[in-house]
């Protein structure tokens, strides 16, 4: 596997996967498993497990993993930088564009429609996670405990992540 192919594959993943998070998985699978055959199906499922153990966006996690397992540290860095190349350029371009036309009626109008849509999209993302995340009584309990603690005690999200992990260790070990 050459560096060039690795770079092209992850630039494509960064450029064509919309929706973030698990919505990016089919695009990653296509490149990594089907087109380039760097991983088998079952190794690809391991990536999901590994991503869940690692902080950060799942696309970054899988880029680093594929790059590292095939071409070592340089591969890891190259794949990671490739996956963010297109988003990086787009953000630079768009923020310049927006600074220029922020007050135009067109931009104002478009954003007045997009803002409420984002709320609907994020709520929908929650629903899509319920299937795989709230699978039994314990996960249901953890969900409610964390939700109430976050609301009632204004707990920091990082604190919530660790408390929920320890709750999982205690509850599932019983």
């Amino acid at each position, binding site marked *: 596997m050459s560096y060039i192919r690795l770079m092209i594959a992850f630039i494509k993943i*960064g*450029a*064509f996967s*919309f*929706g*973030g*998070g698990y919505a990016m998985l089919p695009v990653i699978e296509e490149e990594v498993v089907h087109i380039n055959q760097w991983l088998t199906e079952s190794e690809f499922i391991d990536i999901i*497990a*590994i*991503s*869940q*153990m*690692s*902080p*950060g*966006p*799942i*696309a*970054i996690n899988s880029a*680093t*993993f594929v790059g*590292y397992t095939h071409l070592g540290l340089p591969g890891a860095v190259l794949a*990671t930088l490739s996956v*963010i190349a297109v*988003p*990086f350029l787009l953000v*630079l371009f768009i*923020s310049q564009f927006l600074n220029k036309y922020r007050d135009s009626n067109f931009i104002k*109008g478009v954003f*007045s*429609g997009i*803002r*409420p*849509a*984002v*709320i*609907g*999209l*994020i*709520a*929908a993302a*929650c629903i899509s*996670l319920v299937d795989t*995340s709230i699978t039994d009584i314990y*996960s249901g309990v*953890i*969900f409610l405990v964390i*939700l109430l603690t*976050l609301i009632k005690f204004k707990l*920091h*999200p*990082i604190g*919530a*992540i*660790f408390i*929920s*992990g320890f*709750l*999982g260790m205690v509850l*599932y070990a019983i």
Partner: protein
Amino acid sequence: MLSLKKLFLIFLKIGAFTFGGGYAMVSIMQKEFVEKEGLVTDEEFLDITAISQSLPGPIAVSTSLFIGLKLRQKKGATVALLGTILPSLTAIIVIATFYHLIRDIEQIQYFFNGIRPAIIALILLAAIKLSKPLPRTLFNIIIVILSFISIVFFNIHPIFVIIACGFFGFIFHRKGGSV
């Protein structure tokens, strides 16, 4: 003005402790930059999230780039990006090396089983917080419900929902509707 070092450290913290993917990271960015530091307003954060969702690539990466750019221009964006991806990069290399050893440790599985439902609570609250700056107009309420339904029940891709809602907003705005 926020120093580049402080900006880097905040993103490093977010990058290091956010298990559960991009949306969970966005909820922590909201906590850090809107609630704690007051450097980004509710409305600006909502706009940044909206654009990031419309772009390809990881949402957390685009969001951190926009925040970095807004606070300290291009240097800020670079610093924000590095803070976001460095912990992830390091963690994956460590885990990939030892994966065959830790894969079967039950305690680790339990820890991550516990985190998953909590991520939903975090994202749900982020949606509620993000909705705060929006006026409760009929237009906004309809768009929230429409976009939710079109994804959950009709499996329409988010990018099309965003384009359509941007179009509705433009039409409604031009007709002089108060949005």
